Structure formats: C-alpha cells, structure tokens
C-alpha cells in the first residue's frame, strides 16, 4: 500500500504543480512549479523502478533545462504577465471541454487497461543494461540525437550571440552581456 500512497501523494504534487504553472501570473513562479512537477515525476519514475531515468530526469530536466528557463527569465527580466480578459467563448467551451475530455480519457484508461500492475523496482535495474541498450539497439537514434544536439547548440549560439542586430537600449546591453 505504501506505493499507492507515495504514488498518489506525488501524483497530486505533480498535478498541483501543473495547475500552478497555468494559474501563476509570473513566469518565475510557473518555472519553479514546473521544477516541482519534474521532481515529483522523478519520484514517480523511482516508483516505477527506473532509477537511472529518475536521476537523469533530475539532472537533465530539473538541473539543466529549467535552469536555462530560469536563466532566461532572469535575463529578460520578464514582468508580470498582464492578465487579458479571456474570451467568453474560450471560457464557455474551453473548461467544460477539457473536463469532459479528461474524464472521458480517464474512464477509457481506467476501464480498459486495468490489467497490469506495476511492481516497484521490478525493472531489471542496473543502468548497465540501459547503457547496453542505448549503444546497441538504439545506436542510430543515439547518433541522430547527437547531431540534433549539435545543431541545437550551433543554433542557440548564433541566435543568442547576434550582437547589436537591432538598436537596443544601453540597459539591455550590459544586462545581456552579464
């Protein structure tokens, strides 16, 4: 029963974080709520026995990507998000639509795939196997992703470091260079 308990706790934390992301006005808050979501997800992975994934999740996602986000938010010093009046239609259709949709999906999932139960740590653990898989069965995708990352890096560098393409206020200049 411990698993169920832990699962539901962190599940709720996840959902709360996600909702918070939506509700929050200031991006920094939503960023942090996202970090919380990722943390709880890491725990979920642990529950599912995928330690390595959890660790990587934490390191890569929470550690690197979210830092990037926070970094950018800080860099751009984005202000509060101005609350615009949501259009009637969106409200009217949006919310009920989402609710119905999720309920439907949930019902379908719970109803149909109630088969497998997941044992904790049932996964053939050691990351060595994952490493093996990574470099044998999935070598090609691995290489492709590495190329992708390379491109991404180059893209990021070119885009971000393009100095003075546009006349900018002095304040930004020093801030950006910091």
């Amino acid at each position: 029963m411990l698993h169920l308990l832990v699962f539901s706790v962190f599940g709720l934390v996840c959902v709360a974080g996600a909702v918070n992301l939506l509700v929050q006005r200031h991006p920094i808050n939503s960023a942090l709520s996202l970090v919380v979501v990722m943390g709880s997800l890491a725990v979920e992975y642990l529950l599912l026995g995928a330690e390595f994934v959890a660790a990587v999740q934490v390191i890569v996602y929470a550690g690197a990507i979210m830092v990037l986000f926070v970094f950018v938010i800080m860099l751009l010093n984005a202000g509060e998000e101005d609350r615009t009046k949501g259009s009637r239609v969106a409200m009217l259709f949006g919310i009920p639509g989402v609710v119905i949709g999720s309920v439907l999906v949930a019902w379908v999932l719970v109803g149909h795939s109630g088969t497998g139960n997941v044992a904790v740590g049932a996964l053939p653990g050691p990351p060595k196997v994952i490493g093996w898989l990574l470099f044998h069965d999935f070598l090609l995708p691995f290489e492709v992703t590495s190329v992708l990352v390379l491109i991404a890096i180059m893209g990021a560098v070119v885009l971000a470091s393009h100095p003075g393409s546009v006349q900018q206020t002095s304040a930004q200049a020093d801030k950006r260079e910091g």
Partner: protein
Amino acid sequence: MAILLTAVAYTVWLERKVVGHIQNRWGPTRVGPFGLLQPLADGVKFIFKEDLIPPHVFKPLYIAAPMIALIFALTSISVIPIGNWITVFGIHTPLEITDVNIGLLIVLGITSLGVYGVALAGWSSNSKYSLLGGLRASAQMVSYEISLGLSLVGVLILAGSFSLRDIVDAQGGTFWGFIPRWNIFQGQIVAFFIYLMAAYAETNRVPFDLPEAETELVAGYHTEYSAMKFAMFFMAEYANMITVACLATLLFLGGWHGPHRFGPPFVQAILPVFWFVVKVFAFLFLYIWVRGTLPRFRYDQLMAFGWKFLLPLAIANLVITALIVALRA
C-alpha cells in the same frame, strides 16, 4: 547533521587561519585558543544580527533561495559513505546514512539543483549587481557541472557501478605492494585534476569565485542578504565544499583505504574512518591553499576555460579510460 555543521564551522575557521598564515598574518586568534571559538562567535553574530528585507524584493523567492541552497547542500552529504562496515555495539551498519545503488547520480542531481539557490537569490533580490552575480554564478555552475560529470564517468567505468560503496571497494588493494590502488593512480590523474577544477567552480571558490568577488560585484548574489540568510548561503557554500571533498576522496583517493592496518581491533574498525577524515582534511587544505594564492579569473576567461579547455579534456580522458577498460577486459 551535527557532525557536518561543526565540520562546516571549523572549515571556515581553518580557512581563515590558513589564508591568514599564507598572507603571513595570524588568523583569528583572539576568541578561544588559536581562535578556535571564532566560528562560534560568527554564528552567534549571524543569529543576532537584524534580518532586514529590502523593499520590492520578490519576497517569496527571496526567502526561499537561501533555504533551497542549504537544503540541497546538506542532502548531498547523506549519500556519502564515510567508512566501511563497522560493527558498533553489535550493530552492523555501513557508515553512511543511506545506501542507494546510484549514489553518485543522486549527488550529481542534487548539485545541479543547487544552482537554483544561487540563481533565484540573485534574481529575487532585485538589484542589478545581485542579478548579474546570480547570472554569472549559475552560468558558471551549469557549465562546469558537465565537465564534473564527465570526469566522474572515468571513475565509473573503472568501478562499473554507480554505488559509491562499490567504487570505494574497487579501490582496495595495492599495486605491487606499495602503491595503493586508488583511482588517482589507476590512470585517473587527469580526471582528478578536471574534477578538482570543476569542483572549485561548482562551489564558487577561489579561482572561480567571481560571483562573490568583493571588488567588483559586491558579494555577488548574496549582497542583499543579511544575517541569517547570509549565514545560510555561507554554510551552504562550505557544505558543498565538504561534499565535493568527500566525493573526491571517495572517487579518487580510495575512500577509507589506508596504507596498511595496524593497531588493535577496535582501532582497526575506526581506522578507515580515520583515513577518510585525513584525506578529506587534505583536500580541504588544498582548497584553502589554492584560495589564498591563485588570482581570480576574469569572467570570459572563466567561461572559456570551462568550455574550451576543461570539457574537451574531460571527454578525451573519458575516451582514453574507456579504451583502457575495453582493452584490458
């Protein structure tokens, strides 16, 4: 926890003494014999100081930031095994708080989270200096984290497992009698140096302590913090230092493996711990020593060094060790 905190305090003391001596001045001497009580005094001072919060600061994060930093710093210690199995009063416990078979990963994860503390602090204190400081610190930490991680991989390849305990066990025994089979001697010297530098950068220490460089950015991200919050940052920093030191000893200096066993069984049990402490102390001393002597890196030099030199070196090292392991196996 208690041990760690006192250790932190006395590292501070040690540092001030050593830096003082380096600059041929005495360290703190007045409070207690050889200034031993100085850290206590500082602690008290911090506690009693007025804890003011500057206006239109992003309140929630402003307060949370130091906490985050400290929390992550302390949790990373939990995974580090200090000693070998000891049987104390019949309890056969491994000398570590928890034994997780992906210890190293967890440590890495937590150190990467540590960045948040610094970043948020810088940003939430709503001043240009702190913002810049925070930006620089986080940028630095993020970029060096990679090389840190890569340098550790070398060791992993040798040990073959994430669990710190296994890594240390792998370093037992000696080469031809007298050279201990520490990773540092198993071809990991280069990795050790990379680790060393990355560690300094991670903890914003000396050569890389640009963020809190007094001269330029007025103590960087924790300029606006005072008293207790500042203390937290301070402690977080030193805690990180200790963690890193422990890691170094575990991974490179063979953990609790001493040259040879002597003394009675009781002493025998304590001996690994003793060795471990000695190594950690040595590493810390190295820290402080470097702090006292090396000049500070300019920011772009720092970043360039991090990306253009350290990272390729780490990758090269990784490749070489992989080759060695593959060839030997």
